[in-house]
C-alpha cells in the first residue's frame, strides 16, 4: 500500500503515483483534506507542525511501502517525524517506482535511482487539487489514542505577500519567473504585465521569494521550491544558477531575458533577449499584446 500524507488538497500527482505503484492508496489528511481516508483534526490555533509526532503515529507503513507527501513546508516537517519514527530514508523524489525512487542530487547534476529494504518516505510535487468533501473521511483519529502534542499556538501576521496570491505552479501552462535582475519589489509590476499578456503565472527565484520576500515563498521555482514543466517558461533577470535550472529544465519552451550575454541561462534557453529588462519588458509586453 502507498500512504499519502497531506495538509493540502493539491495532491493529485501523488494519487497518480500511488496508483501506479499498485496495492492501494491510503490518504491521511491533516485538517480538512478532500478524499482523505483518515482525517486528523487540527485544533483551532494550533500549528500543524506541532502535530507532527501525532501524525507520524497514524502512518503504520511496512517495509517495501512508500509514504508520499507534497513537497511543502508543513509536509516536510511531517515527513521528518514519520521518517524518524519509521527509521526510513527521506528523499525529495522526481518520481517513485515500486522498488524505490528517482532522486536529483547536487543541484540536479546527477540523477540517482535509489532503493531501500524498509519504508521510503518521499516528498514530491503535489499536483492539482483533488475534489471531494474536505470534511468527510472514512476514519477519524481518536485523539486519546495518539501522543499529546506540545502546547503550541499560532496567530496570523500580515508580514508577507498574501498566500492567496500564490499560484498553482505545478499545473501552470505558462510561467514568468522574476530573478535578481529586478531592483525593487515595485518593479515586479513589469513582470506581472508580461505574465498578464501571456496568460502566465508569476513565479520567482529563491532570492526574491525567500531572501527578499517580494513574492510568496510558494511561488519559488528551483531546488528550494517547485520543479515545473510548463509549455512556456520565461525567465526574466534570472542568471541561471544550477539550483534554479533544476526547477525549470523540463519546460517545453524556455525563454530568457537578461542584460548579461554570458548569463548561464542563455545556454539553456530556446530564445533569449540580451538587454535591460527595464527597457525590454515594456516593449515585449506591448508587442505580445499586439502580435500574438
Amino acid at each position: 500500500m502507498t500512504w499519502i500524507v497531506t495538509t493540502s488538497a493539491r495532491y493529485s500527482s501523488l494519487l497518480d503515483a500511488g496508483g501506479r505503484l499498485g496495492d492501494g492508496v491510503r490518504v491521511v489528511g491533516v485538517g480538512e483534506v478532500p478524499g482523505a481516508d483518515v482525517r486528523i483534526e487540527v485544533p483551532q490555533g494550533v500549528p500543524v507542525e506541532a502535530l507532527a509526532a501525532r501524525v507520524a503515529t497514524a502512518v503504520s507503513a511496512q517495509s517495501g511501502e512508500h509514504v508520499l507527501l507534497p513537497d511543502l513546508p508543513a509536509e516536510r516537517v511531517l515527513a521528518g517525524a514519520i521518517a524518524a519514527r519509521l527509521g526510513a530514508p527521506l528523499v525529495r523524489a522526481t518520481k517513485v517506482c515500486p522498488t524505490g525512487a528517482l532522486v536529483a542530487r547536487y543541484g540536479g547534476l546527477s540523477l540517482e535511482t535509489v532503493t531501500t529494504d524498509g519504508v521510503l518516505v518521499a516528498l514530491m510535487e503535489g499536483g492539482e487539487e483533488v475534489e471531494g468533501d474536505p470534511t468527510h473521511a472514512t476514519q477519524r483519529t481518536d485523539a486519546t489514542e495518539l501522543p499529546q502534542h506540545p502546547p503550541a499556538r499560532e496567530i496570523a501576521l500580515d508580514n508577507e505577500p498574501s498566500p492567496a496570491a500564490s499560484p498553482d505552479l505545478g499545473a501552470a501552462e505558462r510561467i514568468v519567473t522574476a530573478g535578481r535582475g529586478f531592483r525593487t519589489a515595485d518593479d515586479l509590476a513589469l513582470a506581472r504585465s508580461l505574465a498578464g499578456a501571456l496568460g502566465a503565472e508569476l513565479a520567482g527565484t529563491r532570492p526574491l521569494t525567500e531572501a527578499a520576500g517580494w513574492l510568496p515563498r510558494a511561488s519559488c521555482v528551483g531546488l528550494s521550491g517547485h520543479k515545473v514543466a510548463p509549455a512556456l517558461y520565461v525567465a526574466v533577470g534570472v542568471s541561471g544558477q544550477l539550483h534554479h535550472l533544476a526547477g525549470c529544465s523540463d519546460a517545453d519552451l524556455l525563454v530568457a531575458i537578461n542584460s548579461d550575454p554570458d548569463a548561464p541561462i542563455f545556454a539553456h534557453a530556446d530564445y533569449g533577449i540580451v538587454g535591460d529588462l527595464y527597457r525590454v519588458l515594456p516593449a515585449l509586453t506591448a508587442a505580445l499584446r499586439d502580435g500574438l
Partner: protein
Amino acid sequence: MSVVVAYKWAANPAEASARADGRVDFSRARPTVSEDDPVAIELGRELGDAGGVPVVGITAGTPAVATPMATKAALARGLDRIVLATDADAASWHATQTAQVLAALVGRVGDATLVLTGSASIDENAGVVPALIAGFLGWPCLLGVLDAEATASGWAFTLAGRRVEIDGPAVASVASSARAVVAPGMRDVLAAGRRPVESVDAGALGLRGAASASAEGADVPVVADVADLRVVGRRRPEARARKRVVFSGDTAPGELVDALRAEGVRGAGR
C-alpha cells in the same frame, strides 16, 4: 541551557561537475560552512547573548569536518564550542542517518532547548534535515523562521504570515533573509582557534540496534534502526536540446514575438 546550531561543511555543486556515469566530481570544489548556515549561527548568537547561554555548533560528516580549517570557519561565525561526529563512510549517509547522528549530538550537548539550522545545505538543498532532527528528538519543528525569542515557557517564532509560540524545546530552520551576515574578521578567526571542539566517532554514539537507548551521550529517543538507501542507478541528466536563439537591440522584442508565434504560442485568452 544551550542554543544549538547544526551546520554543514559542504562544497557548492556549482563548482563541481558530473561525469558521464552520473558521479559528481567535487575535487575542484572548495568546502565551506554551507551558505545558509551563517544566518542560523548569527540568530543563535543573538539568542545566546540575550539569554546568557552558550551557543554550541554541531555537525557530522567525514573526518574533513573535524579539520582545524573547518571547525575554525564555523567557530569564527560566533559559536562558543563545537561537538561533532565523524565517520569515514559519512559521505554515503542519507539525510535520515545524518539527522539521527545530529540528534544524538543534541543529546550529548545535554541542555539544549533550541536547535537552529540554515534553510538548506548548499550541496543537497533538500531542506529535510531539521525536520528529521526534530523527529528523532520528538520536538516540534518550524521551517523558514524569520525571528525567534525566548519566552517564559519556550520559544516564540516569527514566520511568513504567522507567529508561533511553542512551550518547550524546538527545532527551527532559519530563512536566509532572517539576518544579514558579514564575513568573520581576523580577530574572530584568531579567537575561534582557542574555542573547544569535541570530536567523537559516530560509531561510538551507538545508534545502531538495541544499544541505542543506553549509548554514551545518545539521550535521544531512537526508536528504530535507520534503513539503508542504496543507489542502484546513476546518470547525468540529459540536457534538453535548446535552440539557443538570442536577439538583441531594439528589434529584439518583436523578433521574439515572431518566434513565439511560429512556435504556436498565442496571447492570453486567444
